[in-house]
């Protein structure tokens, strides 16, 4: 027993004795290069990089738990040569750095920070400028990506990368990041149990946020603005989307959210504003859309085929050019208790629910689907007349696609 205690005590003391802080600066510190500091450090060491410009790239950290922090104004310029940091380690912290000029490659995914099989990692307060990939995190677990700013200068999808790219990752929190002018803002591929919140994603060429084969993730309080094609959630299950703002995604293939092959998701308290298409749903099952606001969109919701058991309730549809475009059969999808600004009914019994049902699909949206050029006739008196006659006796639009209990007042939350 005593011997064991001695050994334990010995281990603890050596551990703490070994955990020292190494400083790196241009002259007069322990080291003047980050790589040499890393090479001569032990697991558990802190590396403090003082202010200055470090022209280093491909800094490799292999199986060492290091806490790397920079002073304000610490710049690492990779000079278009491979990765910034390339890490495979547990308990790794990288903080307060500016990493610049990542090499663009058509065969390799060069990133400012590459994490591979890393557990318990923290990436915080990193600014990546002129990035190809920002953070490429592969096969890693239990991490935090917090308060980073990543921006790129790519011209096309082919020569730009993703700001935060997770591949086969689990349980990662991505919070308070600002990502812009990349290909995808945040991309989760085979990622699960991740939490994405308070990020701002704008001006990305493809998607502001992109899920592929990623189940049971939550994203909330994010803002996605003016991305090439909005946010895409594809081939994933049980995604929770709360309190996000999707705005100004304009273009022929632009959406607030593109939902493709999604099951059991939940959308709540999101705001869709000024998008060409608010939600584009294709092959979605068992999704609840509750208390979202769709304002001034071209199409609030566009539903393609193969959608079953989706429930749209308590949403606000405000001044959209088209509230809904619908292809195929109704397929037990439900619209109930929504507020439609185009609703012209009345509420005689004063229970807050309109007495006559509302038909969200107009004949004109059917015509535009068929002959897209006829969009130039939007809001013409003739169109209003044929829409009205269709409303009275539906011929082209699905007959049972109605909101039987439209609300008379805005839904607030």
């Amino acid at each position, binding site marked *: 027993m005593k011997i064991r205690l001695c050994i334990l005590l010995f281990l603890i003391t050596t551990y703490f004795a070994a955990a020292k802080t190494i400083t790196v600066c241009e002259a007069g510190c322990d080291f003047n290069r980050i790589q040499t500091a890393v090479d001569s450090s032990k697991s558990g060491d802190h590396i403090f990089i003082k202010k200055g410009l470090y022209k280093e790239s491909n800094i490799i950290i292999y199986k060492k738990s290091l806490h790397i922090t920079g002073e304000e104004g610490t710049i690492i310029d990779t000079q278009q040569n491979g990765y910034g940091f390339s890490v495979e380690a547990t308990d790794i912290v990288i903080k307060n750095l500016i990493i610049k000029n990542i090499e663009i490659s058509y065969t390799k995914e060069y990133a400012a920070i590459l994490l591979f099989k890393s557990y318990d990692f923290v990436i915080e307060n990193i600014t990546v400028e002129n990035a190809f990939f920002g953070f490429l995190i592969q096969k890693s677990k239990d991490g935090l990506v917090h308060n980073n700013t990543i921006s790129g200068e790519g011209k096309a999808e082919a020569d730009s990368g993703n700001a935060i790219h997770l591949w086969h990752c689990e349980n990662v929190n991505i919070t308070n990041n600002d990502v812009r002018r990349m290909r995808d803002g945040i991309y989760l591929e085979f990622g699960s149990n991740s939490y994405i919140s308070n990020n701002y994603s704008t001006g990305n060429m493809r998607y502001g946020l992109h899920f592929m084969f990623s189940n049971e993730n939550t994203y909330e309080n994010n803002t996605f603005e003016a991305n090439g094609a909005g946010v895409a959630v594809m081939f994933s299950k049980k995604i929770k989307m709360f309190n996000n703002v999707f705005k100004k995604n*304009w*273009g*022929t293939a*632009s959406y607030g959210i593109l939902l493709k092959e999604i099951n059991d998701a939940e959308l709540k308290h999101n705001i869709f504003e*000024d*998008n*060409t*298409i608010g939600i584009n749903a294709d092959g979605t099952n068992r999704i609840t859309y509750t208390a979202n606001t769709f304002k*001034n*969109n*071209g*199409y609030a919701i566009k539903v393609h085929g193969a959608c079953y058991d989706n429930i749209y309730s308590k949403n606000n549809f405000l*001044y959209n*050019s*088209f509230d809904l475009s619908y292809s195929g059969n109704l397929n037990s999808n439900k619209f109930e208790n929504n507020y439609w*600004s185009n609703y012209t009914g009345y509420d005689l019994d004063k229970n807050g629910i309109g007495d006559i049902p509302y038909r969200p699909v107009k004949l004109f949206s059917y*015509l535009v689907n*068929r*002959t*897209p*050029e*006829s*969009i*130039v*006739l*939007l*809001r*013409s*008196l*003739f*169109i*209003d*007349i044929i829409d009205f006659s269709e409303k009275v006796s539906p011929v082209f639009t699905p007959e049972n696609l109605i909101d039987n209990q439209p609300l008379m007042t805005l839904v607030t939350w």
Partner: protein
Amino acid sequence: MFKILKYSFFDLMRSSWSYVYFAFYLLLGIVLLFLNNDLSKAVITLMNVIIVLVPLIGTIFGVMYYYNSKEFTELLLAQPLKRSSIFLGQYLGVAISLSMSLILGLGLPFIAYGLFKSNAIWDFSLLLIVGMFLTFIFSALAFNIALSNENRIKGFGYAILMWLFLAIIYDGLFLMSLILFEDYPLDKVSLIGTMLNPIDLSRTLILLKLDISALLGYTGAVFKQFFGTNFGLIISLFALLIWVALPVIRIVLKSKRKDF
């Protein structure tokens, strides 16, 4: 010309119709704003009103004024005055007084509501500019019809028919032809089609402000250039100017040769 313009203008200002017109817009503006409490919805409703009613009122007023002041016109013609200045003066008198009723009638409630502090001011001023253009275009067209028809009933009939055609029937034919020829590339045709009708043209101008997100949903390079840049705005305004100029030129030419 300015003397006749001044005379026509004050004559119309004194007539009760101008007040009715002004009161109508004032009431509409007040009802829309103070019972609705939502500026963006008010602008959309207003757009529908302006696009349908302003041409109708411009047409009827134009025809009516021409026929009513016909005796006075004949008296003026006996004086040493240029014909073009007599008719242009009358036309401008009608158009300007109508535009004034429109701008004051709608402007006052919006200013009272606090328009200058809101960012809807550009949408709103575009609406007023379009309304003014429509007034000028349709009163000019009305004068043309009246000049060509001695018979009042016929003149009124043609004027109403013209409004009906441009406001409703044209769009119906337009839509039908788009559907009929849907196998062909139609983006240029559809844009040219809107240029040929001043009501559609004004609608497009307003859509550029209100529904731009929907318009950009269509895949077509011509559309994208037209709606996505200022190109559409400039072309539409230019086309509206042509729409004012052509009927006015015809008034001048027609009145020169007309036998009274």
